[in-house]
């Protein structure tokens, strides 16, 4: 990963609507995501969090506008987006190593013909960004949840993205794995000034790492610092079981 500063400044969503299978998934969503910040998206199940991420990834049709702007406020078209999916429900018996997975993404040479020394070195460099280089020769199916997420994070960081999208990246990962993952993300934000958008349900984690929180349920209900959103009436309404103490 290069040390060049991010070229993108902010991502603006203006009046974004998404309808899927004749159902409204997102309604009139307007928000900004800034570089150098970790923005956390929260909301109840079925609130459209993943749909919002997919709209940003251009994987679902939407109306309204999603604009990428550089530091001078000019449109920025060549946005590189890194994406770490919520879960990777792949066949764990598949004969594929971490090296093969990275080689498939980083090299043009078909992986079945073998992996060159240069590609292997590139894969190692990539894995280092997420402290995962020791996993290079492991079979993908034998990795723990946390290890797999670190490999996926490393993959999402090559080539260096302007926007990093993490869909509940640490759900089902043990406490140590979670901390390691989030510290890596935090370091990335500091050093590379990435815009990071993350879905999470872990309030402690949100308080610790988020710069901004956006609460959605089809549309935006609250936006601001973690403290502002957690103390908002909309938050208590969306998550009535979370006690005030949990969110303060």
């Amino acid at each position, binding site marked *: 990963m290069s040390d060049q500063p991010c070229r993108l400044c902010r991502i603006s969503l203006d009046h974004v609507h998404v309808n899927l299978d004749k159902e409204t998934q997102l309604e009139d969503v307007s928000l900004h995501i800034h570089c150098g910040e970790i923005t956390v998206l929260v909301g109840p199940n079925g609130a459209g969090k993943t749909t919002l991420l997919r709209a940003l990834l251009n994987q679902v049709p939407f109306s309204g506008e999603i604009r990428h702007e550089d530091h001078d406020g000019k449109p920025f078209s060549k946005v590189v987006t890194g994406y770490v999916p919520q879960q990777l429900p792949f*066949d764990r018996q598949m*004969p594929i190593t971490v090296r093969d997975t990275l080689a498939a*993404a980083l090299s043009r040479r078909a992986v*079945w013909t073998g992996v060159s020394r240069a590609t292997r070195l590139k894969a190692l460099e990539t894995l280092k960004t997420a402290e995962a280089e020791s996993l290079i020769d492991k*079979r993908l199916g034998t990795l723990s949840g946390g290890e797999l997420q670190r490999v996926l994070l490393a993959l999402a960081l090559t080539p260096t993205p302007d926007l990093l999208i993490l869909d509940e990246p640490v759900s089902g990962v043990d406490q140590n794995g979670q901390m390691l993952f989030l510290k890596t993300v935090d370091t990335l934000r500091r050093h590379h000034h990435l815009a990071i958008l993350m879905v999470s349900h872990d309030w402690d984690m949100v308080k610790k790492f988020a710069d901004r929180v956006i609460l959605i349920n089809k549309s935006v209900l609250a936006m601001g610092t973690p403290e502002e959103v957690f103390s908002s009436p909309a938050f208590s309404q969306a998550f009535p079981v979370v006690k005030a103490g949990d969110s303060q």
Partner: protein
Amino acid sequence: MSAIYNLMDAMLPQSVFGLAFMKNALLALLLLTPLLALIGTMAVNRRMAFFSDALGHSALAGVGLGVLLGLQDLTLVLLIFGLLFALFISYINRRGGASADTNISVFSSTGIALGLALLSGGGNFGRYSSLLVGDVLAITTKDLLSLALLFLFGIAIWLLVYNKLLLSALNPSLAQSRGIRTVLVENLFVCLVAAAVMLSIRWVGILLINALLILPAAAARNVARSVPQHTLLSVVFSLFSGVAGLVLAFQLGTSVGAAVVLCAAALYFISYLARFFLKRNQ
């Protein structure tokens, strides 16, 4: 072609490969088995064994249509029918609704029934029963040329799209976020499977083609831990089954397709047992 025959005469035992049809059969198997083994690795990883089985069965309907249209050469109609059938099943599966195995089963049975209905008109099905088991000994040099083209075309596609296909097999959203057009590469893959199945079916047979596609890749998967290992072992197992099956069929006077598949099945069971002795999970 005569140079290849001369080389084969010099290298192979005359007692088995003395006759031209045996040389042709060997060449056909040397072209077909590695390609099916390569494609098979992805078919197994994507859990598409049932899909390719349905594709093989649908060949009966393809032949039926060709006969109905009064065509002499059925290769082209089989190929076109196979491509459309494969693309249509993939489309229906992407649309959702019923589960993939239910969709495929519906198409498979429809294909067989349509083929039987068209071909059994006038009680003539006996003329086409060779399609069920295939006959690699009847292959001509012209057929070998089309197999050689299929082989080259298949390898070229496999070199170009494999990485994209592998990433979309792992996670379509992840693949899309890296700029991969997953629907396009998946369609290319099912078309390649369809072309390989349809062009091999006269030699291997409707009942056995899927075994040749799936068994070597499944056997290799039992013992491989990386993509290159999986591919290499699948090709080696497939070539071995092809050659050993041909020789065995010649010695025992039995169907070549059946002998080849039995050799592949034997390798599958051996590799299944071997996996317990290999430290594959490290």
